[in-house]
């Protein structure tokens, strides 16, 4: 007997809001988290704007001990710990270094790279023949699984504790892997999420590929323009999102708050065939990922009320919309509502799937659709496919039963997850 899986906790560190309450208010009002960064300009970046969450030194001390913060230089681990601890507490669990080991709870927390700034520090020291001066903090902050290692110890989790990495699909993939694990009865609950650091060393390669916008350095808040005719590349973002997934029976037994149910989903790859490359999607595989997710969730495409797209604000947005219309066999006025959180927070790369999933689940729980900011001029190719009113520019109060969320990543990898409102 397969288990039903629900979401019982949320945590988020986003450029437009840190903490569930701030983030919820931000996405409702369409608050941009994109600002100008002088250090990007000084290093010669074409794109000098980005989304960086506001985390004070006092806030760090609420989550990490002074000892953990000694020689600490990894924003991805910091954001992951904050979001993860918040989600765990939100689900009704206490965080106590002396808590007993819990074999029924695990963790999948993804990342693109781990502490890239810490890695830079280490490289400089080694090149300077100071390898012994690395001390004990280098390995744990630079290993890819740094985030899951920190969180697993802080929370005392005894089921699977791991880190996944699949570029911009990472967070959504983490969710689906944990979903399968709970569904198949291998664990009662899993903390899942993903994190991406605020670092010019993470963003530089994208700037070099000219996929980030260089046209909005004077107007940062207008820079991230998914689905817009004047979209000119993505704006880099950073942060972390975290969700607690749990079997329905465990959630009911604990009388936990249930945010939404995970009905199903799909993860696949286009194999870099049929038009897919290291950096571009095979559209046939994208469509198959969506249709297979719908099959897995045992719903009809017509039941989808809202899509939270990948929609990065590059020239590929209209192709994504086309893929959705084909996969759902819905277009024009019959297309569901669609939005992209990237208009508000930029493209949070490895963290995007998790932060956007948190935003998706909040929309279901509170029954609203957050606005697509900056999409004042919908791309004509998109208007050929779907009606303009399907792209809300203002927050809408609406009954949302089923939401489809997709993420696509470099390496031609895809993930689509189906969330449903939980009704007792």
């Amino acid at each position: 007997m397969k288990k039903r899986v629900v979401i019982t906790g949320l945590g988020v560190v986003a450029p437009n809001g840190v903490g569930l309450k701030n983030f919820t208010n931000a996405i409702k009002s369409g608050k941009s988290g994109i600002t100008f960064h002088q250090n990007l300009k000084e290093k010669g970046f074409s794109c000098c704007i980005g989304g960086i969450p506001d985390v004070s030194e006092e806030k760090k001390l609420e989550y990490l001990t002074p000892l953990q913060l000694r020689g600490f230089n990894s924003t991805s681990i910091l954001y992951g710990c904050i979001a993860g601890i918040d989600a765990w507490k939100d689900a009704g669990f206490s965080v106590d270094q002396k808590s007993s080991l819990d074999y029924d709870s695990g963790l999948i927390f993804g990342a693109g790279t781990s502490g890239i700034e810490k890695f830079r520090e280490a490289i400089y020291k080694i090149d300077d023949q100071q390898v012994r001066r690395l001390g004990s903090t280098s390995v744990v902050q630079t290993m890819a699984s740094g985030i899951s290692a920190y969180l697993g110890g802080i929370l005392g989790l005894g089921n699977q504790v791991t880190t996944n990495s699949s570029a911009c699909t990472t967070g959504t993939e983490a969710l689906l892997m944990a979903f399968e694990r709970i569904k198949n009865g291998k664990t009662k609950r899993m903390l899942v999420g993903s994190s991406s650091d605020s670092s010019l060393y993470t963003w530089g390669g994208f700037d070099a590929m000219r996929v980030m916008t260089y046209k909005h350095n004077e107007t940062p808040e207008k820079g991230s323009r998914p689905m817009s005719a004047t979209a000119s590349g993505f704006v880099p973002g950073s942060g972390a999102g975290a969700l607690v997934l749990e079997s329905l029976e465990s959630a009911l037994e604990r009388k936990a708050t249930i945010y939404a149910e995970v009905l199903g989903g799909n993860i696949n790859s286009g194999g870099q065939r049929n038009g897919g490359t290291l950096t571009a999607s095979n559209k046939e595989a994208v469509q198959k990922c969506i249709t297979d997710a719908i099959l897995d969730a045992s719903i009809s495409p017509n039941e989808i009320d809202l899509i939270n797209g990948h929609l990065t604000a590059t020239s590929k947005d209209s192709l994504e919309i086309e893929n959705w219309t084909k996969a759902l066999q819905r277009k024009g006025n019959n297309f569901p509502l669609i939005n992209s959180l990237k208009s508000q927070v930029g493209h949070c790369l490895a963290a995007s799937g998790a932060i956007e999933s948190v935003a998706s689940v909040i929309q279901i729980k509170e029954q609203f659709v957050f606005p697509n900011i900056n999409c004042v001029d919908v791309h004509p190719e998109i208007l050929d496919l779907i009606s303009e009113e399907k792209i809300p520019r203002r927050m809408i109060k609406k009954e949302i039963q089923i939401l489809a969320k997709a993420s696509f990543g470099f390496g031609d990898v895809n993930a689509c997850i189906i969330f449903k409102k939980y009704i007792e």
Partner: protein
Amino acid sequence: MTKEEIIIKLSTIVKPYIQNEEGFKNISEDTDFMNDLEINSANLVDIVLDVEDEFNIIIDNDSMDKMLTIKSVVEIIKEKQSSE
């Protein structure tokens, strides 16, 4: 520098790493870092680096392996300082 002065300096160095407050209150020459102060073994290398900075000495690998108690650290510091 007297043994007592070194121990006072060492207490300041190890303070951030200790996980046993009681053991720290009773710190003495006989204190064992891992057993009495419950310092994580990985942090011993950080303490070595902090000792090097504070006392302006270089601690070689063989000496490092012996640095498990306050007493052994005091001995190593004295030895290094006198040899310089």
